[in-house]
């Protein structure tokens, strides 16, 4: 069996075992085991990547259901590898934070903490599966697998008030979207007669016409809900803000990437012609999302909601890049996805820690002058905010820059005038992003300190998690070539490389 299969399935299987053995495992032990398993999974991924020959590392392709033409087809290329590694990294950190989470160990009745770890691991498997699936239906299976565990994470461990409602809305939105996406897949399967993504991407005569266009619309809508694209984003702020810290981190860090990755892997590459016809709409909605989310952020009074809204904006840049359907656009999309995963992961970790301390993440609850009250925590938040607003030299910049660059020189899919208009508006979004993060710093970190009893600075675990993410963010910021070198060779799998 390929190491990649092990890497994908291992966390989920471990999660099931943990859930079944929850009576005998402590939450802390489960979290440690989860982290260990994730690390193991990372090793497997690296192993199969270093042993790659051909377009996809660790490729396995077994017929699974001959009746459906469904294959157990997994493989990792430069588009998916960064996302795979980022997912595992975030899951390790999430497990780490769970291992040290005081509330989950003391308040642990009937193994709830263990179950949470198990759910995280199942979500990990699902995400890894999505990033490595090369069969449309297999992609869909993994895509759906993550949803119900995430519903439980938000509904059970989220805010007591409204957590369940938010979870259900999140689920309903994404499920409706993904069900439509399934219809799109069915259309493709019926018109092209295969489910294998590499085959579909290399069809001698790509799918054109009305029927594939409708299929493309269905796929795009499904993925747009997940990404999320304005105006389908409405589920996101509630879900992110009501979710527990680990849920928010995984939602923002990993889940949204399922949408953007899907747009690349099963939309642009599989139905290029319909995608080209839809690209202007995608681009326009993406920019509308950037502006709208930034404006909303300027009025948000809850840190977690604000970060959630900011994700809409950042994902807008990714979708904008994708809508250019150029090589740079693909590069930008992947880079920005990874960067957003790391940065927003850090932001949500941070917001979660603050919420844990002060019971709520609203500005009023946090008070002012965190610089004095919890200096190190404040500096981490400052760093994350700086990275998120796209400061050059940190990971977030290259994604945004490449996105803007791809918009300046789009493929013929995007009209030049439209693209430049979008470019201008998106650039305004950059300023607005600065404005609202600066506002957060001004409102929460600065100002005359209002000390509380709960002013506890970074714990060791928190510092460790912050350090890992910060190092990753700085590393990608100063040496973007590390990532682009991996992505670039695979760009041709998504869009046609100009001769």
């Amino acid at each position, binding site marked *: 069996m390929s190491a990649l299969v092990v890497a994908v399935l291992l966390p989920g299987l471990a999660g099931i075992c943990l859930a079944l053995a929850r009576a005998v495992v402590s939450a802390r032990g489960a979290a440690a085991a989860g982290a260990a398993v994730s690390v193991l999974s990372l090793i497997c991924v690296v192993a199969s990547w270093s042993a790659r020959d051909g377009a996809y590392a660790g490729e396995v392709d077994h017929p699974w259901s001959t009746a459906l033409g469904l294959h157990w087809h997994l493989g990792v290329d430069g588009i998916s590898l960064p996302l795979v590694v980022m997912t595992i990294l975030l899951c390790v950190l999430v497990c780490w934070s769970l291992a040290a989470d005081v509330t989950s160990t003391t308040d642990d009745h009937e193994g709830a903490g263990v179950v949470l770890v198990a759910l995280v691991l199942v979500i990990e498997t699902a995400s890894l599966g999505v990033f490595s699936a090369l069969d449309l239906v297999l992609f869909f299976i993994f895509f759906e697998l993550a949803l119900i565990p995430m519903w439980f994470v938000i509904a059970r461990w989220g805010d007591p008030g409204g957590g369940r409602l938010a979870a259900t809305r999140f689920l*309903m939105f994404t499920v409706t979207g993904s069900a439509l996406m*399934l219809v799109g897949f069915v259309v493709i399967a019926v018109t092209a007669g295969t489910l294998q993504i590499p085959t579909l991407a290399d069809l001698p005569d790509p799918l054109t016409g009305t029927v594939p266009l409708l299929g493309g619309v269905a796929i795009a809508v499904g993925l747009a809900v997940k990404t999320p694209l304005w105006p389908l984003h409405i589920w996101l702020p509630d879900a992110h803000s009501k979710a527990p810290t680990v849920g928010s981190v995984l939602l923002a860090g990993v889940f949204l990437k399922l949408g953007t990755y899907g747009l690349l892997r099963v939309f642009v590459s599989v139905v290029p012609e319909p995608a080209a016809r839809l690209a202007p709409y995608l681009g326009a909605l993406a920019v509308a999302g950037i502006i709208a989310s930034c404006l909303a952020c300027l009025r948000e009074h809850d840190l977690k909601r604000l970060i959630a809204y900011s994700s809409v904006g950042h994902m807008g840049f990714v979708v904008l890049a994708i809508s250019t359907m150029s090589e740079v656009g693909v590069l930008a999309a992947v880079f920005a996805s990874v960067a957003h995963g790391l940065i927003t992961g850090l932001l949500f970790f941070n917001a979660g820690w603050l919420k844990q301390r002060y019971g709520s993440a609203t500005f009023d609850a946090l008070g002012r002058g965190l610089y004095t009250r919890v200096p190190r925590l404040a500096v981490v938040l400052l760093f994350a905010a700086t990275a998120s607003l796209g400061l050059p030299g940190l990971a977030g910049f290259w994604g945004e820059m490449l996105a803007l660059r791809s918009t300046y020189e789009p493929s013929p899919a995007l009209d030049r005038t439209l693209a430049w208009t979008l470019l201008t508006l998106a650039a305004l979004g950059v300023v607005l992003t600065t404005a609202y993060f600066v506002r957060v710093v001004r409102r929460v970190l600065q100002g005359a300190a209002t000390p509380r009893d709960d002013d506890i600075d970074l714990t060791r675990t928190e510092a460790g998690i912050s350090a890992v993410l910060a190092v990753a963010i700085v590393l990608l910021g100063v040496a973007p070539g590390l990532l682009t070198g991996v992505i670039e060779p695979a760009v041709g799998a998504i869009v046609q490389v100009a001769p």
Partner: protein
Amino acid sequence: MIDWAAVTPALILASGAIAALLVTAFHATRTWRWPAIVSTVSLLAASAVAVATGSIDRLTLVLTLVVVLGTFMMVLAAGVMDHEESIPPGELHFLLLSSAAGGCCLVVARDLVTLVVALELLSLPSIALVGLRRSDLGAARAAWTFFLLSAVSTAVTVMGVSIVYGFAGNLAYDQVATALAGSTAPARAVGAAVLLTVVGLLFKAGAVPFHVWIPDTYRGASVPVAGYLSVVSKSAALGALLVVLTTAFGPVRDDWAPVVAVVAAVTMTVGNLGALGQRDAVGMLAWSSIAQAGFILAPLVGLPGTAAVAAAVSYLVVYSLANLVAFTTVAICRRRWGGTTFAHLAGLARRDPGAGLCLAFALLVLAGFPPAVIGLLTKYVVLLPPVDSGYGWLAVVMALNVAFGLVYYLRLLATVLAPPSEEVATPPPSPSPPYTVRFARAAMIAATAALVAASVYPDLLLGVL
């Protein structure tokens, strides 16, 4: 000429039915064990014969097995009611087997006469089953509702049959097909006759607007009988529908397909809407079985293509297994905790992990979500024929209903997996050692295992046709 391969299972079941009745009649005291043994033997024999002879073709074999094994499982599930004095065991098993014999006949019918008679043989005992519980007004009312509607729908069906006969001059499927293909009769009138003919089958399948009896009847009947209605009776009707639409009415497909598409769309939507507000597991499963019928009807628009048949049958099989598991679990829950509302089911996975996990898996299958891969794949499979034959809108409606359905499945799922609610946390003392519960549980676990196996190797199910 008699096709013994086709009728033997039905004959075995009919004999078994009489035997089960006699064995209780000649037993001195009320006995549950003996009729159950007789039923088990005859059901297993019937399935063995069906497998050995291969029935008429692959399709009827699968449908026969669904009917026979579904009945078998409900016989085992009915065992959990052995402590209820108001239920006569001999009659129960007699009626179950009789009805199952009707189901077997129904799926092998290749003639409208057989169809009508088999339909009645399926219906009348199941009506009696609903009203079986003595001096239970609810059951009697449910039976009356079921009876009256069944009678009307039968009348409509035979009216349709008579008109088809008027157009075709024949009642054997293949000759009807030939006659209709060459007929000069107005196509619309023929289409109407066809649809009137299948009203009885749609009624049994629970398609909107012929579904109205289902919620009341399921709730009035005992849980295993409701399960029987939702699985065996429904599968037999849908199987017969599949056969009759393919072999007899295939040539006039264009006349009935659009209406079937609309009926399918409305059925799944109404079923989901109805299930939305339910706080009782049986009520919810009743409505959900209406919605699921819509999903089974949808691929029929792709008939007479074999892909459509395969899609409908594989969905039917998976639905049947999942519903059997669900009803068995609910029956066990009712036996052990005295009720079927969500409050009784809350925390089932903690109180009774086996039942809880099986129910959870069955719900995931019904909803079509991983890890119940087979549920998802069959949802995918039934989407193919509508898209392939140009009913894109139907596919979209189906997709939306998949999402919609998740709401209530997930609600029950969350209830099952949640911590137990306080009032039912401690089980009441069981009146008798529940050895019958163990049998039911074994059946439940076996069916779940089949679903899990199919999730791992989908070809086990999807490859059968």
